[in-house]
């Protein structure tokens, strides 16, 4: 066979995986990414609206940091998003694709709201607030755990696909919530549950550090530390890692995969339920089928980006909340269309996540005209 002789050509770009990267380089890459993002965002803002990009960025910053109240509001949202991320971490680490946090949180919300309504002022029961809070806590944790363990039971027993199963459980929870709203509707005709125990505040979480959301933040911080320790330093955490890496290795090591599935999903669901408790008792004091507001899905991103390190999850959750608040602040302050302001925060997020690629890989470009002839 005759071979075509070809001109020697080199590909333009080559990627190679970095082994280790010096810390300063990693920081430089990330800083450069943020700068580039702000620059691109600025060009975008100026070209579509003619506004001064700096003032737009200022109002974005103010969205979270202008007042103490705004800061606590952002902290509360961070706490709830983080909490759901914490719940998902053990499941995903076990490679159990729990897409059902939305439903698990919502079911926890429903359980908690039920306790508040039937133990509160509306039916004249008026239990002490502390008792109601305790009962809400138990009910929401049990409800979340129940919603989480059902798919695990089916997977352990019949090897059902947990991705589909947990996803579909979300819709069941949403339908149940819609039904509950119609039963608990108050005042009649409002098509909503209204603020539960609005007069007596029975079951509302008390203030902490003089803040309405103090307890929400405290619970999330506690869980963050506990889950970190649980995953890293306990036998359960070790088993989760082994099962997640290879079921064959787990069998070889004598680990009961069934048991680990069930136990971990009980915990994952329970923490989701706890997030529901934080939403209903600590924040919204009402319930609807949209009360979780897709945070069950956003939290999946939080968990994976942080590679299940709960402390990094806190940073990512805060970033997402900051960008979200910033976008709506821009929209009101600068009369920038909401879509445009979301594009600005989208650009920033894209660059921050995208730069991790350059932290992991080295890119070398060879330009033919720069090469010496040999």
């Amino acid at each position: 066979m005759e071979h075509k002789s070809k001109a020697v050509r080199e590909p333009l770009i080559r990627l190679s995986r970095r082994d280790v990267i010096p810390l300063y380089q990693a920081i430089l890459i990330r800083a450069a990414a943020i700068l580039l993002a702000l620059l691109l965002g600025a060009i975008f803002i100026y070209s579509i609206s003619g506004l001064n990009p700096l003032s737009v960025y200022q109002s974005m910053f103010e969205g979270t940091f202008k007042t103490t109240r705004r800061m606590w509001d952002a902290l509360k949202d961070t706490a709830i998003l983080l909490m759901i991320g914490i719940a998902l971490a053990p499941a995903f680490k076990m490679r159990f694709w729990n897409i059902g946090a939305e439903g698990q949180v919502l079911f926890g919300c429903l359980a908690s709201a039920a306790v508040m309504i039937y133990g509160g002022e509306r039916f004249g029961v008026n239990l002490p607030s502390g008792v109601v809070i305790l009962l809400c806590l138990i009910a929401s944790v049990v409800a979340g755990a129940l919603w989480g363990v059902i798919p695990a039971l089916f997977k352990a027993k019949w090897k059902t696909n947990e991705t589909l199963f947990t996803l579909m459980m979300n819709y069941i929870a949403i339908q149940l919530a819609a039904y509950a709203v119609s039963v608990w509707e108050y005042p009649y005709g409002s098509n909503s549950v209204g603020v539960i125990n609005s007069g007596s505040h029975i079951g509302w979480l008390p203030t902490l550090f003089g803040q309405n959301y103090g307890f929400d933040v405290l619970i999330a911080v506690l869980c963050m530390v506990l889950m970190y320790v649980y995953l890293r330093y306990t036998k359960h955490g070790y088993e989760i890692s082994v099962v997640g890496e290879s079921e064959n290795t787990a069998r070889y090591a004598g680990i009961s995969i069934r048991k680990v599935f069930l136990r971990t999903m009980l915990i994952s669901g329970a923490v989701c339920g706890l997030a529901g408790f934080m939403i209903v008792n600590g924040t919204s004091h009402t319930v609807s089928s949209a009360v979780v507001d897709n945070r069950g899905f956003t939290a999946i991103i939080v968990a994976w980006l942080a590679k299940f390190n709960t402390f990094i999850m806190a940073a990512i959750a805060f970033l997402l909340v900051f960008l979200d608040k910033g976008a709506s602040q821009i929209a009101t302050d600068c009369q920038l269309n909401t879509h445009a302001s979301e594009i600005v925060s989208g650009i920033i997020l894209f660059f921050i996540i995208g730069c991790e690629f350059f932290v992991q890989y080295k890119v070398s470009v060879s330009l033919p005209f720069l090469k010496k002839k040999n």
Partner: protein
Amino acid sequence: MTTPAVQLENISKRFGSVIANAHVTMDIRHGEILSLLGENGSGKTTLMNMLSGVYHPDEGTILINGEKASINAPKDAYQYGIGMVHQHFKLVDLFTAYENIVLGLPVKKGERKEQNEEKIRQICENYGFEIDLEKKVYDMTVSEKQTLEIMKVLYRGADILILDEPTAVLTPQETDRLFEVLRNMRADGKAIVIITHKLHEVLEISDRVAILRKGEFVGCIPTAEATPQILTERMVGKKVELQIERPLPQSPELRLRVRHLNVISEYGLPVLHDVSFDVYSGEILGIAGISGCGQKELLESIAGLQKTETGSEVTFFPAGNGTDTPLIGLSPRQIKKLGISLSFVPEDRLGMGLVGSMGMVDNMMLKNYDECSSFFTNRRTPRELAEKVMIDLDIVTPGVFTPVRRLSGGNVQKVLVGREIASAPSVLMTAYAVRGLDINTSYTIYHLLNEQKMKGVAVIYVGEDLDVLLALSDRILVLCEGQVNAVLDGRTATKEQVGLYMTHLERKDGNSHGA
């Protein structure tokens, strides 16, 4: 002298901080079989992958037939007439042999299947292949699949062939047939490179031996001047004892009794049929058989990982005057709770024996993390063990917390064997313990197994290299189609005898109970 088929000049390749190849300069000639020899991680496969377009050299030039070449993709390699047969076959199971051969080639106008088939038949005739073009890949034996892979490469017009460990999965008879084909190709003027760890094959088949050590080219020796001793020394860089010892078993006593072991696969086919044998302390029982004829299921049945049919019996006899314990139906953890220490080095090292993403420390505690009563894991003891194993077995790793997946094959196996031996087993089962390992590491493993044997451990060694099985084992059990076909004395059995029992099932009445 004619132009060499391939000239490598000053080729270097690094992955991060790891240097895979450093300034390699060598040539590959037409009408010659070249063996490429080197320890694990010495850069053999990386070097050949640069020829086949998988990697691109960082430095250096490749000349093909005297012309400078730039190979950026496997497609380019084909253009230059280079074809590589990888260790792991790349075939479509559901397609026939013919479909796999023509897969991915552009269809020419007016192309007819008959013409292509004629071309394939021509190649078969030239080199002495046998191939059934209508057979589906999933019906093929390993050897047939390999023939098909070679055919694929030849059909694309390759005249420079690279074979990565082609004999690792073949029986002696199949290896002989492959070598016959390779000799025919050499006679036809093709350039052939064969990567292998088996020295006797290197000496049998090749004309020259190129040796790599730690990524560097050590030199090329004409095979006629080579001996196993010389090759090993150049490869390792120091003197190596190439003798497998076989001390006499010291006061062997019955340790495991297997009777009427039956296993049925999830598709309802019998995998093990009425398997009965005994295992003694202080001896190495070799298990031979073509790949996939029940070895895995046999070991896993003993380890409590495999579901067995009713009537199967595995009984453990402890040393001294303890009572015998039936093991069938017990899980690995239940067996351990009874105080029975079964060690098992499974075939799939990173998929079963170890957790690839964890470091040595976490892997050391895989089987006994549960022993202390605390809710928390104790990493102090495993860490000490990891450091000890690292030193004792000379494991090359950046640290005891580096994920074991990043280590080379030989080091991964040392981690696994080191852990299994550390638990002071009374039975040690190993499946293909030296597969893919270089000669130096292999001998380390043989030595470790002999050490265990002398300590009174009952060692079961499932192997594929018959020379090693015959040199190491006290007794050899030959499996054929999931049945015990023969139990031979390792000191008197011959390679031909074992090879025959591996492929031809003796129909006999009654049971052979080994021993």
